């Protein structure tokens, strides 16, 4: 069945609300307005204002309320409009939600799910367009996932709710309208493994969230040039699935990480470091990365496009790595 990413996410939420009375949604504009990306449209009428709660514009307050509810036995799903705004709630997430299990010696858990949109491409300018997944992937105590496919959009929420400790779900804003085939694989979605989306022999492209589709497109284009790229959808940003990455790199001997975050201090840097640590002697070329330019993401369309990792940049990086760079015009 072909559905959109938005529909898959919506089905997942609907299913969770219908199954478990402890589950409720909370966030800005998720009720009357139906969610800024229309994921929870109609939910208010169906489930009522106790379970679909519009909140004041204070991320600090409503994430904190979510933590309290989770500690009290509920299974809150908190939506934050974009990762940029989540910085207002960083103290609650990093200093409270992520720490309770550790600081209480396992006596208290915070079974909180936080959903947030991330990424650029919709001309929403710098304050709505950044990719700060790596900030969260840095923090022990959090599980961080980035569903890229409709299967994962549909499937990851279940295990996230079942997780006793906080889970952050990053939904790339450009994916909501993307269509995909929903397969039975969604039922076995986990919060621990990366997945090879396209097998290849010459270079491994490692991507997640919004860049997965650019990597797949790049792989298609590279195939035309005789380069078979393997594409890994990382899926889970913390904890990282090293085994899948290393297994692939040991076969292809080359790796390019595609990360919509800024290069310096990026998650791409972490993945590259792990490849150096674990697979250096299998590498046939320095590991490369395609990241966003180190500027606040611009508003102007052509500049926004220029700032982001694009298929053409991935293709160029792969060709150069294989010594098959196209002559520059």
């Amino acid at each position: 069945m072909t559905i959109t990413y938005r529909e898959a996410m919506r089905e997942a939420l609907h299913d969770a609300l219908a199954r478990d009375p402890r589950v409720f949604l909370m966030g800005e504009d998720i009720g009357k307005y139906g969610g800024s990306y229309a994921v929870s449209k109609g939910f208010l009428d169906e489930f009522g204002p106790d379970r679909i709660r519009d909140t004041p514009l204070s991320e600090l307050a409503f994430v904190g309320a979510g933590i309290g509810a989770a500690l009290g036995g509920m299974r809150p799903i908190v939506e934050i409009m974009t990762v940029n705004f989540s910085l207002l709630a960083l103290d609650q997430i990093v200093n409270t939600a992520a720490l309770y299990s550790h600081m209480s010696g396992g006596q208290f858990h915070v079974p909180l799910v936080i959903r947030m949109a991330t990424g650029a491409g919709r001309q929403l300018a710098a304050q709505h367009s950044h990719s700060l997944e790596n900030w969260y992937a840095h923090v022990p105590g959090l599980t961080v996932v980035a569903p890229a496919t409709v299967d994962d959009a549909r499937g990851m929420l279940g295990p996230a709710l079942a997780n006793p400790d906080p889970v952050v779900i990053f939904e790339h804003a450009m994916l909501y309208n993307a269509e995909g085939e929903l397969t039975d694989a969604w039922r076995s979605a986990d919060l621990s493994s990366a997945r090879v989306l396209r097998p290849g022999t010459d270079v491994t492209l490692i991507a997640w969230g919004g860049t997965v589709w650019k990597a797949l497109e790049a792989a298609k284009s590279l195939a035309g040039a005789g380069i078979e790229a393997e594409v890994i959808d990382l899926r889970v940003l913390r904890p990282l699935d090293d085994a899948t990455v290393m297994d692939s790199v040991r076969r292809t001997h080359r790796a390019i990480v595609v990360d919509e975050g800024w290069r310096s201090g990026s998650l791409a840097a972490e993945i590259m470091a792990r490849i150096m640590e674990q697979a250096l002697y299998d590498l046939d070329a320095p590991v490369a990365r395609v990241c966003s330019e180190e500027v606040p993401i611009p508003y102007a369309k052509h500049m926004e496009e220029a700032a982001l990792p694009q298929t053409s940049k991935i293709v160029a990086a792969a060709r150069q790595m294989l010594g098959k760079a196209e002559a520059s015009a």
Partner: protein
Amino acid sequence: MIEFKLPSLGAEMDEGTLVEWKIKPGDTVHKGDVVAVVDTSKSAIDVEIWQDGMVLELLLELHQTVPVGTVIARLLEPGETPEHADAEKRRIAEAAAAKPPAAPAPSAPTPTKVVPATGSEGRRRVSPAARVHAQTLGIDLARVTGTGPQGAVTIEDVERAAAQKPSADDRALAMRTAIGAAMARSKREIPHYYLATDIPLERATRWLAKRNQGRAVTERALMAAVFLKSVALALRKFPELNGYYRDGGFVAGSGTHLGVAISLRQGGLIAPAIRDVGSLSLDELMKRLTDLVARARALTLKSSEMTDATITVTNLGDQGVEVVHGVIYPPQVALVGFGKMSVRPWVRDGNVMAEPVVTASLSADHRASDGHRGALFLNELNRLLQEPEPLDEAPK
């Protein structure tokens, strides 16, 4: 363009100081000419060149000290013009300039002028995987052309180089060098001890003759195969002679993989392995031995055969010598030698008899075993050859 590098002039030499240039730009040089005098820690040495060419530029000044491998002069190859060389130089310079602004090269004792443009400190760009691959295949990276990004050597380049057959001259020279390096290392690092014993072969000879009777020539087994089999079986009781000395410790071999020293017609020698000799029947072993010798002489050995041996067996009986005092092939820890099998006076039951006798010798690494055990090994070898019948079969 020829990049003439300061060659290593001895195992202990890692740098040299220029005393004198014997050439100047414009000179024509021939293979074997002395081009410079270089002072090493031990003495002044005449440095020869191994290619014909015309001197383009000298990159080393008097009294300058540089590490081995530094390019000290550039020469034009026969038929090459200075324009050619300029173009190539430009290409190298551009490749260097195209490098990302890397951290400054670690300060080296080399003046910048003589640092090759291919990388800091003259280290070539070789991918880690290619380096491992070259080592596995026994490929000299200096002979591999890099086609990867910025001219780096890739796995594919190593494989291409491995597929190319070097010319006989190069090969003979390379082999001499390789043997020299391995044997120098052996004598430098391995505290050898040597033992030898005479082994009467009356029974073994008779048994073998009877066994070969009525068989076609190609079906017959040679005493050499009997020796190999008995060495492999004896090793089972003396694992400390079968394996490698690595990183300061002995590592037992995974099986009795016997390196068989084979001299090549064009000179030189190789010792490819027959795997698990202890578990082969004599017929199978003979078949493998025949095949191995043929392929060794045709130079079509597999790389695994070149690296698998856990001990070496050398048989110099055909050359008429009585005793072999072998040099262990590192990282192995022992070498078994067989001399000429000859009819000698031998005392049996109080009578002097004329019997075929061979002198078997053992060179072993004192870090891995002692002479007492070595002696017991030779005794076991002797014992096995006195009752040769069980050598025929593949043991359970």
